[in-house]
């Protein structure tokens, strides 16, 4: 009797899962396999298609443009992600300890940039950064200072970090804030009795308690950073010479496929990028687990 019930339950589970599985397989798994297959070939405008096995991968990991893009993203990761997450954490803690009527408005206004589509946000920042007519440049000129060129080849990465921070701070803040709200209040009472102040409570109770949520935002940020595409792609229209077609690995894959008409190598770059992201995520995950068991 019990087994029939279990079987029926299992059948129901599969039926309920089926729509997702069908879409998952056709829209994700099959294209993934196909592009993996493509990456093993080389197609030339003259001469056609040949099987090259792993040659494309050898080329990718020795391609200065791909490696340069990766390095740029590592730079982005090391500078932008800590700043963004620290700010998000600070805001989440501030909102959590405030718990006033104003915190609702504050929460919403910090979150709003995330609700603005990335494309719109980038266009807006592109205007703000404008050299001749941008408001920032105008303010600088009013004061009588030289306005910095936000879109010059040396500054554009920093300008992009600013955009991405602005866009995603609210998103990360919400994840951390939600985690903070689920901490049992008894812990705070206990801390208070022990004589812990607000800062001490935050440091010793809140942050350790939401470590999984913080870890989640770190992983999301790593993946997001390596997959940067919208921001560089849109900014390249207004700063075409500062942002090369291989500025980020994703942009490079796109321009290989649609500008250079080299779909096979584009698929290789996409796969190689996936590999790099996987390795870095794994390293971060292992490092955090080690830390957890140590503490």
């Amino acid at each position, binding site marked *: 009797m019990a087994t029939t019930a279990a079987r029926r339950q299992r059948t129901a589970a599969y039926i309920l899962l089926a729509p997702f599985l069908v879409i998952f397989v056709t829209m994700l798994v099959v294209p993934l396999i196909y592009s993996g297959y493509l990456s093993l070939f080389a197609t030339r405008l003259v001469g056609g298609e040949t099987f090259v096995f792993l040659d494309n991968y050898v080329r990718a990991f020795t391609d200065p443009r791909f490696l340069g893009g990766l390095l740029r993203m590592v730079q982005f990761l090391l500078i932008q992600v800590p700043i963004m997450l620290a700010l998000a954490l600070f805001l989440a803690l501030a909102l959590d300890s405030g718990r006033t009527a104003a915190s609702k408005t504050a929460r919403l206004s910090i979150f709003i940039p995330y609700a603005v589509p990335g494309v719109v946000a980038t266009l807006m920042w592109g205007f703000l950064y404008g050299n001749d*007519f941008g408001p920032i440049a105008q303010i600088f000129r009013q004061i009588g200072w030289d306005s910095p060129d936000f879109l010059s*080849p040396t500054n554009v990465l920093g300008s992009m970090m600013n955009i991405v921070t602005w866009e995603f701070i609210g998103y990360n803040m919400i994840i951390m804030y939600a985690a903070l709200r689920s901490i049992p209040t008894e812990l705070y009472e206990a801390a208070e009795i022990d004589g812990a102040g607000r800062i001490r409570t935050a440091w010793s109770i809140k942050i350790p308690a939401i470590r999984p949520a913080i870890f989640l935002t770190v992983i999301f940020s790593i993946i997001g950073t390596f997959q940067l595409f919208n921001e560089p792609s849109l900014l390249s229209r*207004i700063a075409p010479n*500062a942002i*090369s077609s291989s500025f980020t690995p994703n942009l490079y894959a796109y321009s290989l496929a*649609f*500008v250079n008409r080299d779909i096979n190598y584009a698929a290789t770059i996409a796969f190689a990028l996936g590999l790099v992201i996987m390795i870095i995520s794994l390293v971060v995950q292992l490092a955090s687990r080690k830390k957890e068991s140590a503490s």
Partner: protein
Amino acid sequence: MNTAAQRATRLWTAAGIVGALVLTGCSAGTTPTATGPVSDADIQKALETPTDLLFWSWLPDVEDEVALFEKKYPAINVTVENVGQGPDHYAKVRAAIAAGAGAPDVIQLEYPYVSSFQLTDDLLDLSPYLPSDFSDGFVDWVWNQVSRGDQVLAIPQDSGPMGNLYRSDIYAQAGLTESPATWAEYADAAAIVKEKTGSYITDLPPNDAGAFIGLLWQAGIKPFAYEGGEKVGIAVDSPEAQEVAAYWQDLIDKDLVAVDPNFTDQWYQGLSSGKYAGWLTAAWGPVFLQGTASDTAGLWTAARLPQWAEGEDVSGNVGGSTSAVLSSSENPIAAAELAKFINTDEESITMLNQQQSLFPPQVSLLESQEFLAQKSEFFGGQEVNGLFADISTTVDSTFEWPPFMDYVYSSFEETIGAEIASGGDLSAGLTAWQAALEEYATGQGFTLE
């Protein structure tokens, strides 16, 4: 009495007609690609057969010209789709061709891209569908852009012979009465304009390979050689091109020309605010200016490009499009007729000029008194059409494009374009561009000439 049954019958009849249309559409699709000239009878028959055509173009309101075609040939139904402009459009065309289904019959195709699609045999040779004297209807240099030997790969729609559009008020302020006749005078004028008015004489866009190539074209330089097949010539680093680069290097070093990317908000702003005293552009430039710098109406004048040698009168071309038929089209006769009609029918080409402001490559319009004598208020009553019609006859007639323009454009931005933008070494930029192009070409299996 309008009963449900009647309505249903009517619906079914309509469906039947649609079905019949689809069926005949399919049967017309079996017409083999003609090898010899197609007879008038064949053409007549194809044009009377109900046919659906798909036309991809980003020209605004091209539906109006298409409507003229549909009015003349009621059996043919043309669907116009705008799938993007320039590179986006080509990427989608290539994807549709590769997919083997859903490709349009007729596409908008810019001159530099004809070779790209010729290489992959994606263009239908239109010569069997055209009268033998068809080429006489177009300006020589434009016709050379679309023909390969006896083959005709596209029908010219518009062109962009180059001139110098300048702010006569800024020039006057600097004490200049007319556009410099030579490039040497232009450099002198640049210094005077900058000193007296603070404006740059022009902008050299670091993102627009087309504009730069136009300047090379005017200097009589042939940076590319390609006639089909596997051989391609690349000479963007030739001594002559280096001379052009050295000229601009000097102006950039002295801060006499701006180096802003064009067609950006900042650049539009520069045009209307007088940051640039002039714009070296094509015959479609005037109309474009009227839209973006409308505050400055009446202050502009159009002139010829400065010349490299005194007494010379030559120009280059930037931009312009054609209509081409894809070889995958199942209705080549009707598709060829559409491409031909919208670009040669008098009513249609007049409309293209007056409504969409395209500059005509069609001789009939270029010689029409009404067209030539049209005065432009924006240019202080100047007969701008007449000027550009004259310039059109001075464009060097043999200019070829390599079959990978997407890469030519993108690599420009990263090599010489980057040097222009940063005020760096243009000469090294050209060398780097040459190297990038050669590497790409050989990597794609081409043999360098």
